[in-house]
């Protein structure tokens, strides 16, 4: 029998409250608005985990922005066995040639996906390419990447909520919490 997720009981600890997240998003929005004033900015978000952060961040930015969405396959997913290489599942809708691009990520841990995306997007000739992440988990880093806008550095725990999932669940939590280990160690 498959265990039924419980959005309350499965969270062992609230790592970042809704208020903490919103305050940080406003702060990042102000910094980005100042830094990119007078420039053509495109926010590029990576589906699916970044959606809540993207939605809040773009509304906290006070200069004109364009947004775009990308989705890439993950190792271990259905695409892995067929090609053995990461695939762009959803590409940019508009050209970023000559535009200032800011990648909006929910979390950076190993840096492998982001490293791939940065190289891919650089090939599309943006004027500049920078990175904004709400969460940074440096303990898991394999590929070092310069982060231009960082919300929170978090400990090496499995976090869910505010877009982050486990088994496609928990994304709709308004906070970032720590998932109880027994949920993923003994799911049945």
């Amino acid at each position, binding site marked *: 029998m498959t265990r039924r997720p419980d959005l309350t009981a499965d969270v062992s600890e609230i790592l970042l409250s809704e208020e903490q997240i919103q305050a940080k998003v406003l702060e990042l929005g102000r910094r980005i608005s100042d830094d990119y004033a007078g420039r053509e900015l495109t926010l590029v978000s990576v589906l699916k985990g970044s959606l809540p952060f993207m939605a809040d961040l773009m509304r906290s930015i006070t200069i004109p922005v364009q947004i775009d969405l990308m989705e890439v396959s993950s190792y271990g997913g259905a695409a892995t066995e067929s090609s053995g290489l990461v695939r762009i599942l959803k590409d940019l809708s508009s050209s970023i040639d000559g535009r200032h691009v800011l990648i909006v990520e929910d979390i950076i841990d190993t840096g492998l996906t982001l490293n791939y995306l940065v190289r891919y997007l650089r090939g599309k000739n943006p004027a500049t390419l920078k990175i904004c992440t709400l969460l940074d988990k440096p303990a898991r880093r394999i*590929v070092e990447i310069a982060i231009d806008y960082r919300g929170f550095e978090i400990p090496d725990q499995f976090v869910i909520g505010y877009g982050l999932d486990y088994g496609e669940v928990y994304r709709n939590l308004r906070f970032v919490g720590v998932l109880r280990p027994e949920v993923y160690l003994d799911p049945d």
Partner: protein
Amino acid sequence: MVLDADLDRRPAPAFAHASEAELARILDFYAVAWEYEPHTFPILFDRSGAVLESFSPDFYLPELDVYLELTTLKQRLVRKKNRKLRRLRELYPGVTVKLLYSRDFRALLFKYGKLSLAGVLTGADGQTTPPRERSERPPVASAPTRPRPRRSRAEARARAAARLTTAGRPTATGTPDDAEVTA
């Protein structure tokens, strides 16, 4: 999109552990160029300067200039590797080595939905050589050595798969842990 068209033509190293083959597949997936044990660093010398012990990190990522050392032994068994890594960092401060412990590798497997493979990819079950034999390679006189030629990725996978069920690797001579350090 393939960022590195040479990936499919890379030579297949003889991975010593199934976890290394899996990490190589992950790096391949994300188009991160890697070399398997291309460099050996002498880390222990006797009074005459002869090399007594050396350390060959598992992977070198040339585009990032970073070495990765993967150990899936239980935490209490990695003391020797930690000591070697500390010594390497003392002697070669410009060299960046990231050590991935068993818990880090399990976290990777979990992230990619492959935690069920942890049993066969980590610890003694994933080894093709007993730990002492593999860690006690003959020392070399200079570092780093020339990178090994690459083999095809498909060949690497086939070899790694074979090593999940095949044991046996030539035994190397040992190096003393307690030799006097003069470097």
